[in-house]
């Protein structure tokens, strides 16, 4: 089946194949994405992030079940790390999502990070568009287990749930920058364990001391993914947040910013690629002169720019 037609007909095999082509940077994928673009923008995109072992996959599993119970369809992109040494990856998020495999309203794709350091795979951005055009009501992206600064998820998601667990460190951890600042909702998972209430208090304190003006102060929800505790509330808060940002026009604004950022990245990527291809010789010559102190890098840059402008 032709790629675009297959996606619009909700054929999972085609969606899976297109995502593979995206991962391989195959030109056929770009052709399909061009045609699918006008069919995107209808899914809510939810990012789930947090440290390794926090229970992200189990929470995604439970959340997706709740969304399905409300008649919504759900696409899931679960990212796990690629080994920087072998290029291989062990993708194990599906182990926690076995209940969902045969649900016709669910599509799960495991994705290896393949060298991206921001917590999600480069191909995830376009994979989201595939599932969006496919017609999924919700798309959940589960990041790799993150530390503190892998926050690329904000570049793709409409909202972010940060999953934390008790016992990861003292309250200084909560003051640190990075993932703590991108949460629209906090889920304190494994909250049947000791220290859960203390963690909730610490997050509350961090939020109270924050100078940031919240449109909506991030709620903190205690969950136990393995037994389903708190999942109803989490799902309710997610819908609440999404309707709030939609009604206030914040969602549209956020998506415009994301579109802008994505387009800027695309321009930068292709322009620099083009310059390196076309002006490779000049760059090398200038580089030699810079090393030999014949010219300084700033003047060299100006020379290069002039040659590009004149050349066009």
């Amino acid at each position, binding site marked *: 089946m032709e790629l675009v037609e297959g996606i619009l007909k909700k054929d999972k095999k085609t969606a899976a194949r297109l995502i593979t082509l995206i991962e391989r940077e195959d030109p056929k994928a770009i052709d399909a994405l061009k045609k699918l673009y006008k069919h995107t923008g209808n899914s809510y995109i939810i990012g789930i992030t947090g440290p390794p072992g926090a229970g992200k996959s189990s929470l995604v599993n439970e959340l997706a079940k709740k969304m399905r119970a409300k008649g919504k369809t759900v696409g899931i992109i679960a990212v796990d790390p690629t080994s920087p040494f072998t290029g291989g990856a062990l993708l194990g998020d599906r182990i926690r999502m076995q209940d969902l495999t045969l649900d016709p309203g669910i599509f799960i794709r*495991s994705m290896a990070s393949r060298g991206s350091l921001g917590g999600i795979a480069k191909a995830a951005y376009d994979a989201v568009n595939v599932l969006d055009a496919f017609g999924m009501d919700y798309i959940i992206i589960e990041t790799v287990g993150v530390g503190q600064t892998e926050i690329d998820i904000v570049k793709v998601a409409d909202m972010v749930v940060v999953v934390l667990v008790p016992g990861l460190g003292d309250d200084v951890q909560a003051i640190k920058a990075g993932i703590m600042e991108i949460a629209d909702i906090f889920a304190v998972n494994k909250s049947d364990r000791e220290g859960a209430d203390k963690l909730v208090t610490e997050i509350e304190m961090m939020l109270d001391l924050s100078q940031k003006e919240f449109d909506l102060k991030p709620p903190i929800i205690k969950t136990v993914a393995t037994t389903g505790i708190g999942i109803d509330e989490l799902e309710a808060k997610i819908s609440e947040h999404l309707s709030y940002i939609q009604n206030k026009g914040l969602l549209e604004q956020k998506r415009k910013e994301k579109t802008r950022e994505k387009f800027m990245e695309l321009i930068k990527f292709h322009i620099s690629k083009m310059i390196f291809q076309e002006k490779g010789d000049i760059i090398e010559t200038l580089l030699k002169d810079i090393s030999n102190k014949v010219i300084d890098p700033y003047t060299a840059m100006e020379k290069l720019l002039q040659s590009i402008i004149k050349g066009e």
Partner: protein
Amino acid sequence: MQGERTIRVLIAKPGLDGHDRGAKVIARALRDAGMEVIYTGLRQTPEQIVEAAIQEDVDVIGLSILSGAHNVLFPRIMELLRERGIDDILVIGGGVIPHEDIPFLKECGIAEIFTPGTPISQIIDFIKNNVKK
């Protein structure tokens, strides 16, 4: 610019079989050989395995079985793949499988059966030489 071709493998444990040490060792070895390995956990039905293979668009399905039900479960998986129109996934099996059962399993479409004691390098080479996509 075309990205490097990465082999994607689904390692699956069909049926009622609670032991996955072997499956995990294979998964780890294939990962170290540069492959992307999706492991789906214990007690999978043939339907679940085939659906996961489709959504993950894998090149290879590796079935690990120790329960003795291979003569039922392996053919069923091959049948489901055919029903879904899939003929470009390499399916291999491993585990406690008597030698006399192997010809039948190959007839059903399993490309190779690896029994205990097989060097892991042999499995890696077989996959690299036989992926169909």
